[in-house]
């Protein structure tokens, strides 16, 4: 177990190449204890590719990843054991019920026995899924599936939570529950890597953000620093650094096509 060393996730010069396409180009960032790092970027900017590398599902073409001072490639199992992950799309075995899925994930994580069942029951009750415990997840809404995935990610008490669009499909109250939960989660020095298109949520939740564009980091700083002296909103900063500010002309072009 990694008990010594700095409590930090460090991504150093990550690259991912798919034949001619360089999906992630020299990306570096760190997450400090107690920090929620916002990871932003337009579609196709390399966000999910980076996240897949961070959680160990994708091997970087070059660069390194370390958690608590230990590199991913030296002991990938122990590295993954400390991470909880909610993927962008709620890919689940939908013919299973929520308790069955959580039991599967818990056992794959090495948890077992009555403790696991009790934990699953309590999590399902708290996430408002207990009433649907007998229904297979094919009948679940996207928000319900997100709640199952978050329960699965938290089941083994991870040190780092990696969340890829965790708010998609959630209603207002569930969204507020998630926000509060994440704030409390990092209080005792744990970390969250939070990728989202919901800039309002990122703004109120994250202390620091990394913005990606075309596979490269185009901005990385504290939210208040990025907003600068002009007190721009994060949305405006995002549009500026990713050069996506000409929405009006694009919208007009779209309408022109529709009307033609």
């Amino acid at each position, binding site marked *: 177990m990694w008990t010594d060393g700095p409590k930090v996730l460090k991504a150093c010069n990550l690259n991912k190449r798919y034949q001619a396409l360089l999906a992630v180009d020299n990306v570096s960032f760190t997450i400090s204890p107690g920090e929620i790092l916002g990871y932003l970027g337009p579609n196709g900017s390399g966000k999910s590719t980076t996240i897949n590398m961070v959680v160990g*599902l994708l091997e970087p073409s070059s660069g390194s990843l370390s958690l608590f001072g230990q590199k991913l490639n030296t002991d990938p199992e122990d590295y*993954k054991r400390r991470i909880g*992950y909610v993927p962008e799309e709620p890919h689940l075995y939908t013919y*299973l019920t929520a308790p069955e899925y959580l*039991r599967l*994930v818990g056992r794959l*994580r*090495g948890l077992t026995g009555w403790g696991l069942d009790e934990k699953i029951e309590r999590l399902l009750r708290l996430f408002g899924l207990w*009433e649907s415990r007998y229904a297979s997840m094919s009948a679940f809404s996207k928000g319900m599936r997100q709640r199952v995935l978050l329960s699965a990610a938290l089941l083994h008490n991870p040190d780092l939570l990696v969340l890829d669009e965790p708010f998609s499909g959630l209603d207002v109250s569930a969204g507020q529950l998630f926000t509060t939960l994440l704030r409390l989660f990092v209080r005792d020095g744990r970390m969250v890597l939070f990728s989202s298109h919901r800039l309002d949520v990122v703004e109120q939740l994250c202390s620091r953000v990394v913005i990606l564009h075309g596979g490269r980091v185009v901005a990385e700083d504290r939210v208040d620093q990025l907003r600068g002296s002009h007190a721009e909103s994060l949305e405006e900063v995002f549009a500026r650094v990713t050069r996506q500010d000409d929405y009006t002309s694009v919208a007009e072009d779209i309408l022109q096509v529709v009307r033609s």
Partner: protein
Amino acid sequence: MSGDTRPAPFSTLTRHFFQGFFRLTFLDDAGEESFRRAMIGVLSGIVAFGLLLLRLYLGKYAGLPNADVYRVMVQADRLLMISLPMLVTAFAIALVSRSLFPDETDFRILMALPVPRRTIFAAKLTALFLFAAIFIICANVVIGLPFALVSGGRWAESPLLDRALAQAAAGTLASIFAVAAIVAIQGLITVIAPQSWLRGLSVGTQTVMVCGLVLSLPFVDRIPTIAPSLHAKASWLYFVAPAWFLGVQQWLLGSREPYFVRLALMAIVGTAATALIAAGCYLALYRRFDRVVVDATRMGRRARHPPLSWPRWLPTRHPAYEAVQAFTGATLRRSSLHQLVCFGIFAAGSALTANSVLGNVGSQERFLIGAVLRAPLTLIVATVVGLREAMLLPANLKAAWVFQFTEAETSRRHQMNAIRDTLGGAGVLAPAALVFPVQAAVLGLRSALAGLPVIVLLGWMFVEVVLGNWRRIPFTCTVLFAKRPAAHTVLIAILVLFWLVPIGGVLEQVAISGLRPWLVVTAILLLICAGLRWVRLQSWGRLPLEFEDYLPDTIEPLGLR
């Protein structure tokens, strides 16, 4: 709103539904491509077999001694040639039987578009008609017409054209009856069954139909042997649907015998009735399309039994073992595709077993004993292969990330052990237990009990061989078909069924002949099993799991000089 709104494109929808019958959504692109290659291989095999059959029949009809023998034989063979296209068509429709009516996706997507409901239903019906027509025409052209050609000989009573037309008409009507019957059964379930049972009943019926059709193969194979019953105009044939259409054929060829006229009437009434029921179901569903939307799983809060927990007094198992075992069990219980593959191959094994045992009832006792001794081994081979093939098919490739994410060298071996135990339990112990009463009845309880360890050891051997290079969590890896030539696969199947199984039967026979032979046979088998286990354990769980199937990258030379 501007722009013109044209009528719903019927042809586009028909094409969409038609292509849907051939779509395998559980495969990735490479898997679909390899499946197409495999199907081409299978079809080539069938054509080659058909040519061989043609040659056999040509010889048979050329050498008949007189018209009476011809008359007796030709009727039974005509019945066979009606049954085969019927079986092929029924099998194809049974495989897509859960897509015979517009479904929930169609409702949600198409009803939101300006497409009239009648267009959706008409397009689906047309697509189904086209899909069925392909199989009806191909099966009758490939099987029926060549038979009309070769069944002439010198004793033929009607000209070739009449024979060909009568064969085509009877075979086509029989195939239409099969299609209408399956549509009617699925339609009745969709319309009448309580909504909370709908999905389960639909999946169960499909599995039963496919297994029933596979199980009917030995009986179809034996049709030529019922020639005397046909000649004697046996009344039990009134209950055999394909025989009705022989009546149609005989009537078309000019026979006005009351027996055949009655059979022909039954064929026409039966086909009309099933077609009417199928049409009625379409109509009922057309009026209540929302019914298909209600997913049974959404209906209820029905209390499922809590999962059976491992007894506390037994040593605890590794959580990774429990995870894979529970996941495998749940997938096999709930996925219709995996059930279909598993039970389909199991049914094929059962058909072979039944064929072998029933074929020896009434013959010399030693033949019957030999068939009964081989029965559990055939069933074990079929069940293990069925389970293995089902485990190779992915359930939801995108959801497999959870296994990739949690893969660990320390738990891999336990995960693999869960697969071994599943194959051992469901693939070896269950079939052995299933056939045990038959063995006890024929061989006697003592001999059956003595043979049981030998059967289990032979089954264990087979499982060890099957799992030799296994590196997958079931249902989580992409799959490529036809990785080896079809002839290679056929050769392996022949070796197993006609070499391994008979040798196993002989070993069992030797073992039950006395205590000393029993000890020798079980000791030898134990040693072989232990050796195979040792070989397996050299790599078992040490290499990373596979989540992507791949083609062999080396070409194995034949070594011919």
